[in-house]
């Protein structure tokens, strides 16, 4: 699709907006529909769109395989680290009260934010890896 000028220009314009919408879906998941899985898919869709319209190697120039592999592992680690943090500060594993001991209820949005970003990172990078390895 390299000779389709309209598609190329539209992809360049849409790319940052799709990314921001993905981050919004992840971060706003505790107030509105959404969450890590959906937002991760939206972010992956931005990169895969770029890879389809330009080229898979062109997409891998902005997101190399090494980076996507590392971020994939980092997502799971963020989730587990959030649980380990609450465990180490004397609460149960994944108990969000650990994030604000004075007011246990308000720790939940913080814990959710961290964990949803972990889920979103892993999902987005696995989807991009799927695109890279199956059709790239």
């Amino acid at each position, binding site marked *: 699709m390299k000779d389709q000028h309209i598609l190329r220009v539209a992809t360049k314009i849409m790319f940052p907006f799709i990314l921001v919408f993905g981050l919004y879906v992840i971060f706003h998941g505790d107030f509105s529909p959404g969450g890590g899985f959906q937002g991760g898919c939206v972010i992956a869709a931005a990169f895969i769109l770029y890879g389809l319209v330009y080229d898979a190697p062109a997409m891998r120039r902005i997101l190399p395989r090494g980076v996507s592999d590392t971020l994939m592992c980092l997502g*799971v680690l963020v989730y587990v680290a959030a649980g380990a943090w609450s465990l180490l500060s004397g609460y149960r594993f994944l108990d969000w009260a650990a994030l604000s001991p004075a007011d246990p209820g308000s720790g939940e949005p913080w814990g959710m934010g961290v964990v949803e970003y972990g889920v979103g990172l892993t999902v987005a990078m696995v989807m991009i890896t799927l695109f890279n390895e*199956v059709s790239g």
Partner: protein
Amino acid sequence: MTDYVLLDVLLLALLTITAVAAVAMRNLFASTVILSIYSFLMACVWSNMDSQDVALTEAAVGAGVSTILLLGTILLVGSREKPERAVHWPALLAVTAVGAALLYGTADMPRFGDPQSPANSSRVSKGYILQDVPKVADAAGHHTGPRSEGNYFHDHVPNMVTAVIVSYRAYDTMFETVVIFIAGLGLILFLRRRTS
């Protein structure tokens, strides 16, 4: 017969038509586009049932990413289906049997939106709808005491689906993430070509 039932009937009729069309279509590219339309209609059905989270997932995964991946596969294998149209009798039998079992199973389902159904009347789901879920006090003695003294969380996040997924069933979600991670690991180990 309210308006959402009418909308449901219309959407489900369109779903059946698109499903049959996706199977009958010989051109795989057209088939992929019709599958994307199928997912989008499914998202409409979910949002008509007020389950917005599932609708968003269906739109993002079914209509978005899986369509893109199927298109990427078509780029590799070409868009012509193998010309083989004989009816596969064991497959037809299996599909009919499973469909009959599912239809038989729906007879036991509670009515849509029934407040007495197990999913709506259990203690946990009532608590999450009212945002009033007990949290057990931990060994360190944080937020102990009877219900009126802060043993309950009164300020769960507003989206109860997220509250259930990431707080009440946080272990579950963690291992779901690990499952997705393992799938990505398998892709890297089995499909990555060592050329460069």
